[in-house]
């Protein structure tokens, strides 16, 4: 039951052009930066990437966009990225925009064996086009379907050899749901510990959802909007 792989190369083995990937993170917070760098190296392309955001020009998924490795993005918000804008407006890049809560819930549903659910989000908007509408408690809802991926790639703070994961602060975001929804889930962690060191009461992602785990070589953890107040 040892899921540890020695490095990012082993972790990403089997990822091929044309596949659908889920990538955790919100903005640049909690993104699997080591694995993204490896995907650039591998040169896989025609990827469908499910990720709340698309990184910035020179970090995160922006790096895959630079190399035109992404065919389609499924996201809730894709600002802050000039190359993204260029490819989208030129039609090179397909974009499927999904309300953030529906995106999170669709990933969870994919991992939880729930093929579809009703949500009020997006009713009456273009998001609802082609979707079934049904009223519950006097309020219209639309039917949303589950999302899954060939590989889900997540980033955690700590992990153990059984694949159990712990996230830090708001770097948790989409990572737990995506970990559930990958046929194969890869976790890169800042700290890798032996099974039994993490308190079983306080694990965010049970190891059953994780197939491969490795300690990331380097975490830049770039800050997108550095906002501070002066010390006085």
């Amino acid at each position, binding site marked *: 039951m040892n899921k540890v792989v020695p490095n990012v190369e082993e972790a990403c083995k089997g990822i091929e052009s044309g596949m659908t990937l889920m990538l955790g993170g*919100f*903005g*640049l*917070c*909690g993104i699997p930066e080591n694995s993204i760098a490896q995907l650039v190296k591998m040169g896989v392309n025609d990827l469908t990437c499910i990720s*709340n955001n698309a990184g910035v020009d020179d970090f995160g998924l922006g790096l895959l966009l630079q190399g035109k490795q992404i065919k389609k993005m499924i*996201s*809730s*918000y*894709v*600002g*802050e990225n000039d190359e993204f*804008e260029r490819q*989208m*407006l030129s039609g090179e890049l397909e*974009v499927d*925009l999904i*309300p*953030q*809560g*529906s*995106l*999170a*819930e669709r*990933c*969870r549903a994919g991992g939880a064996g729930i093929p579809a659910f009703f*949500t*009020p*989000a*997006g*009713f*009456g*908007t*273009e*998001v609802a086009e082609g979707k079934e509408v049904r009223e519950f408690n006097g309020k219209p809802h639309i039917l949303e379907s589950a999302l899954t991926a060939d590989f889900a790639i997540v980033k955690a*703070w700590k992990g153990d050899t059984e694949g159990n994961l712990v*996230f*830090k*602060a*708001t*770097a*948790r*975001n*989409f*990572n*737990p*749901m995506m970990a559930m929804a990958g046929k194969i889930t890869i976790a890169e962690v800042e700290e890798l510990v032996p099974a039994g060191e993490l308190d079983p009461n306080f694990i*965010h992602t049970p190891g059953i959802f994780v197939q491969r785990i490795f300690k990331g070589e380097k975490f830049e*953890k*770039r*800050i*997108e*909007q*550095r*906002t*501070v*107040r*002066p*010390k006085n």
Partner: protein
Amino acid sequence: MALDKNGIAQRIAQDLRDGWYVNLGIGIPTLVANYIPEGIEVEFQSENGILGMGPFPFEGEEDADLINAGKQTITAMPGAVYFDSATSFAMIRGQHVQLTVLGAMEVADNGDIANWKIPGRMVKGMGGAMDLVASADNIIVAMMHTNKKGESKLLSKCSLPLTGVGCVKKVVTNLAVLEITSDGFKLIERAPGVSVEEIQNATAGRLVVEGEIPEMKLN
């Protein structure tokens, strides 16, 4: 005199009640946090996964793992809690958040809102806005009454693609406080020194003016 952005935020803050959980959108809504009335406690939710959001960190104390939905570095208050995005939107969709304040490009007099997309321009995405507007029981829109060209943003029908249908309950602008009723925008308060006429002129949608309209009271 018409309010500035801080004035709008200050007026909205008067609507806060003790014990409320509040989600503030990007822009003017964010400023509401600076005007919490004395003697009440509210807790701010940011949909990327924190309840009990605090102010920006002191210089040098930024944590890349601790940001808000605007991707800004923040701090956490005592009693704060972090959670994943599915749980975050369970709070929102499940109506556990008592107040949502967000900006808008257009609001219609039936409560429709448009704030995510301008055809022909780069579309950045709706983020959490569609979930927020579709779910919240209590939504206040914070915005200028007119756009940069001087055109009314309070319309009889939104011209831009919708974010949500019939969901806005209240609008606070630089000119007025308005509630959405079945008869349209009902004028509740005027900004200090702003006349009913000015508001009427700046409002393209149906406007209901009943009796004397008081001025906002700001400190």
